[in-house]
């Protein structure tokens, strides 16, 4: 297996009646990387993920995982993939450990080996003390960790994480991030969807930004920031004359008004705004490094998606 194109999509499309959820997209995921799918709600991220792990058949196009076509080799592909879905679908009828051992049985893992792996995974997910607790007594963070542990029961080569930290407190998020980094070091190929730009920036080697079923941009987090929003952002409270001054002083910078703040983006190296802020102190002026959130909002707009 070559390291390139571990997962490959060409012209991948998914339609529901008249609605096109995924619209003729091409992408590759390389072996061993962590690839992030970003996009507003309804962009087609989860649908794409579900096609990769063979639970939704593509309407058209070609999708291969490790060289195998998803429509022909579903079982083989599912054997090598671990999935941590967005929704909690742990089995509420079972305890923590039984959730893992029953799931292992679905993969034909022999009883003894499944108990051994389950024990290791409970240690990995820091859930050893909760071994015999029923699911509804777990906190949200514990459930997410158990879902991650369950996704690893078949020792997958590919891990699909659909919004792994949504709704978690910062401690729980950082713990999950730690675990994801550990898995990446072990060589697991990871596909991750998230709404948190800091999460994407920290974990992902490469990002695909989706909107309305299409991939609208791709690159490393740093590349995307540099390309779309430059190095620095000046934020200042909105006033008519401030606007005019800024327009004159920075004719090449991109200017955007967000509620009552002016955002000014520049491609010039660090320090471009510094003297301005020092010489003309304005209300609420700050200079900060441009980030992925700026890129995301620039590319997908500020309109609410529901």
């Amino acid at each position, binding site marked *: 297996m070559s390291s390139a194109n571990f997962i490959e999509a060409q012209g991948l499309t998914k339609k*529901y009646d008249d609605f096109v959820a995924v619209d003729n997209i091409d992408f590759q995921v390389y072996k061993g990387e962590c690839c992030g799918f970003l996009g507003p709600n309804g962009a087609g991220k989860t649908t794409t993920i579900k096609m990769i*792990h063979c*639970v*939704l*058949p593509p309407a058209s196009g070609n999708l291969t995982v490790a060289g195998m076509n998803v429509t022909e080799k*579903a*079982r083989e592909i*599912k*054997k090598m*993939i671990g*999935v941590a*879905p967005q*929704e*909690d*679908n*742990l*089995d*509420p*009828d*079972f305890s923590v450990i*039984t959730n893992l051992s*029953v*799931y292992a*049985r*679905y*993969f*034909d893992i022999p009883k003894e080996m499944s108990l051994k792996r389950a024990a290791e995974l409970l240690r990995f997910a820091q859930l050893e003390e909760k071994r015999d607790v029923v699911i509804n007594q777990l906190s949200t963070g514990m459930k997410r960790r158990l879902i991650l542990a369950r996704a690893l029961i*078949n020792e997958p080569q590919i891990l699909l994480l659909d919004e792994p930290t949504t709704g978690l407190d910062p401690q729980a998020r950082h713990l999950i991030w730690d675990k994801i980094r550990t898995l990446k070091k072990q060589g697991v190929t990871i596909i991750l969807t998230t709404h948190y730009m800091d999460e994407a920036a920290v974990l992902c080697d490469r990002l695909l930004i989706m909107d309305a079923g299409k991939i609208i941009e791709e690159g490393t987090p740093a590349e995307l920031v540099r390309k779309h929003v430059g190095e620095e952002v000046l934020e200042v409270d909105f006033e008519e004359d401030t606007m005019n001054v800024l327009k004159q002083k920075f004719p090449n910078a991109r200017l955007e008004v967000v509620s009552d703040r002016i955002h000014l983006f520049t491609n010039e190296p660090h320090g471009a705004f510094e003297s301005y802020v020092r010489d003309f102190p304005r209300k609420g002026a700050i200079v900060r490094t441009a980030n992925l959130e700026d890129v995301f909002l620039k590319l997908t707009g500020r309109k609410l998606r529901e």
Partner: protein
Amino acid sequence: MTTRDRIKSYFTLPELTYRVWKVWRRNFDVFMKTYKVNFFPPMLEPIFYLLGFGLGLGAYISGNIPGGSLIKFIAPGLVSMSIMYSSFFECTYGSFVRMYYQKTFDAIIATPISMEEVIAGELLWGATRSLISSSIVLCVVAAFGLISSPLTLLIPLVAFCGGLMFSGIAMCFTSLAPNIDFFNYPAFLFITPMLLLGGTFFPLPQAAQLPATIFLPLTNIVLLNRGLMFGNLQISLLTNVAWIISVTLFFFVLSINAMKKKLIK
């Protein structure tokens, strides 16, 4: 897709492997966790029926009733009722909860098990529930001394097959259900009338026998069980057997395809 292709797509034979049993096993494991709740109510219920209908109401009945007394007549009916109830409710309310509220099906199809296998596992589990419950009822009925033929030992076979039939019918309703309250329709308008009018508690009048055997699944099971329990085998029971087998196969295939269409768009 033409209408013909569409109809045909509901009757394609599902590809099933041994993995069906892993789904069955999951349900069995849950059942065994709460076995006390699962064993006692099915044991007590028929006792109330036997006391109320059999002894209570039966005391006022002096007509010529097959089996000699009402309590003896309804005994195979109660076994048949438990066959119908356990699989029907397992594959409507039970399956709907697993599918919709617990997302158990979604979790399972992320493994090498397919959606067809999940549904087939659910159907076989429904049949198993019928086997278990009706065996309990059979023991109660035996304790009341109402069994007169060793052929009764064949009833568990009828229970599994009949259970599979009701599972398939139930699963078709589940494939149509937009929400869990929807099951009030089949429960009150299909299951209850069939129980009360299908020959369970009183012998069907001559004119009603043929239509009931053609249209009512329960009637076929009741007739078969009564024949076995009374040791009164008639050649006509073969038509009931054939009817049950064909309807079981029909709904087994139909319900798997219908559920697959509902869940995998």
